[in-house]
């Protein structure tokens, strides 16, 4: 990493608080296997749009109103439901460590309810279509570590380490 660039392109982002600092990630990886060494490690931030909707049911017997959260992967345009908003923090980061936002925000807000319908129908077996109202949105980032390792045969491989919950997977598997 170059200190110079970091200085030039610092930006402030809202980021999910990372449960795993670099040392924690080190420890966690070494605990899994001893047959490798960590050569390099750096943060990478993955963009999500957190959208909040209000869902209103008008059933015959019941009237329900609920707020739901939808996460849109702003790099690949994939949606998922979020249980809770999570714990956020505002930090200054090097702009080049952010994966850019490629997906259109307006489109994400418009398409988000489709995921909500799907989820409601699958989980609650509700057949009538509820009203879904957009409440607000916010661009957030999820932190990952890119970890460069060498195995016993000195072959290089990379791991993607989820800094929030400590999951990891091979990048070039």
């Amino acid at each position: 990493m170059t200190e110079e660039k970091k200085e030039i392109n610092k930006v402030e982002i809202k980021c999910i608080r990372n449960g795993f600092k670099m040392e924690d990630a080190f420890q966690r990886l070494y605990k899994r296997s001893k047959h490798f060494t960590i050569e390099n490690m750096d943060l990478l931030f993955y963009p999500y749009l957190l959208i909040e909707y209000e869902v209103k049911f008008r059933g015959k017997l019941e009237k329900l109103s609920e707020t739901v959260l939808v996460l849109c992967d702003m790099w690949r345009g994939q949606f998922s439901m979020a249980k809770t908003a999570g714990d956020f923090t505002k930090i200054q980061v090097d702009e080049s460590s952010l994966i850019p936002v490629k997906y259109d925000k307006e489109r994400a807000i418009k398409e988000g309810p489709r995921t909500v319908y799907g989820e409601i129908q699958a989980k609650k077996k509700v057949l009538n279509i509820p009203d879904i109202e957009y409440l607000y949105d916010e661009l957030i980032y999820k932190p990952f570590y890119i970890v460069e390792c060498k195995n016993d045969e000195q072959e290089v491989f990379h791991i993607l380490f989820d800094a929030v919950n400590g999951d990891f997977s091979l990048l070039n598997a």
Partner: protein
Amino acid sequence: MIGGGVTEYVVLLIYLFGMIGIGVYWAKHTSTSEDYLLGGRKIGSVLTALTLQTTSMSGYMFMGGPAQSYKEGYFTLWYAVGDGGGAIFNVGILGKRMRRLSYFLGCLSPIEYIEKRYPGKATRIIAAIIAICFVYGYVLAQFLSAGKTMCALLGVPLPIAIIIGAGVIVFYTFAGGYLAVAWTDFIQGIVMVCSMVTIFILAWNQVGGLTGLNEGLRALDPTYVGMWGKDDMYLGQWGVVAGAVGVYLIGYMGLPHVVIRHMAMEKPSLAKQTVVIATVWNQLFIFVPYIIGLMGILMLPNIDDPEMVVLTMAYELLPGVLAAIVLVAIMSAIMSTADAQLMLMGTMLGRDIYQRYINKDATDKQLMNVSRICILAVGVISVIIALVQPPGVFQLVVFSFATLGSSFLPSYVGAVWTKWGNTTGCYASMVSGCIISIVWEAAGLASVTGMHTFFVGIIVSIAAYCIGSAIGKPPTEEMKDLIDRAGCKIKIPTGLATANYKDIAPETNGVLTFLKDSTYMEERGFQPV
């Protein structure tokens, strides 16, 4: 009738009670259904080797083989040439990998194995129907030949002979499951080879050794010792030769009741001993019956029924008791084939049909009972058919072998050796292999075209497997991993890919595409991904 004396009865009774004793012993030592269905995966290399081969050889080797060489001369040895190398292909290609993959997939029956490797709604039902129909063809053929042998030798009426033979086969398969099958196969194997080799040595002396035999045959008719059969009847028909060699050289890899033995191997590393033991064993046993048939041409030129050539020679060359033991050897060959197949049918009907479609939560005990009842039922049905309208034994065996081989070989081999072989390919090869064999046989195309049924069946089936696999959806990543694991091909240090892989996978792909298109890695001194 050749036998029918007291000696034959005594020897046969001693033998039958011995086998029943083993069945009872193992019934007491069988506890879980894994024990019953696959002998608890504890079959050592010698047993695997011998059961693999005795299972594959039936009464056909004592009756059909010698009878055919008696009729056609050296040409029949093409079948032996293929058979002699069968174990090398069968164990060498499938053995270890199939043992591992079936263990990883957690399957006990060869049909369950196909279904787990080629997941799909119709896999099990297609495989089970083909396997049950044609393995049943085998079972029926064995019951018939057992009955015919008993009838000819003991002088009892055919119906009684069939009931006695079937009763014993069903009893010890029913009582002890696979362990009983494996152990009795082992003993039967020893008896079989000793008997055959004894007749062979005595006949060898009578005809003046191999040179004497061949010169004698040449004097009778030079085409007996030629490459193309008596009167050069197969002159230039390489399609028949290829089928005759191939059917036993590679055909075993498609037989569910043979490949189940790989799944029962104690350790994958036992495969290498199995190859050597089985191959040496095959050279001892496989060529001998055909050559005895050739010797029969000189020694028994006027025999009425060529299928009785080995039995008649035994009575000509051996004292009464030893001749009776040969009779037992023939019975044992037939039984070892029959009980392995009955066992397989018990497995298929129990696990593949009952547990799958009738009672999903069947306990070990229920499953074992169902398998036993099914074995009993199959035995009873076979006896009824054998008594009411018996079909021809040898046509049934050859046809069942070719159809099973053509239907399953590509799926079993492709399962462990390709990562691209998929469900569509499996369906295509099973259905086309089965249909082409039936059509080829029913229309009598083998003699018209000079192409063996198996030769055509297997080519069509392999082609269908490749084409189907190219069209269909590729196997899942998890399955590919398991196939790699069965071939010990996964890199361990990269094993940092954890069970969490699935949760994080969508982001992994996203990150990968980002890293490949950006300067992120370069700027931070990483090596490229």
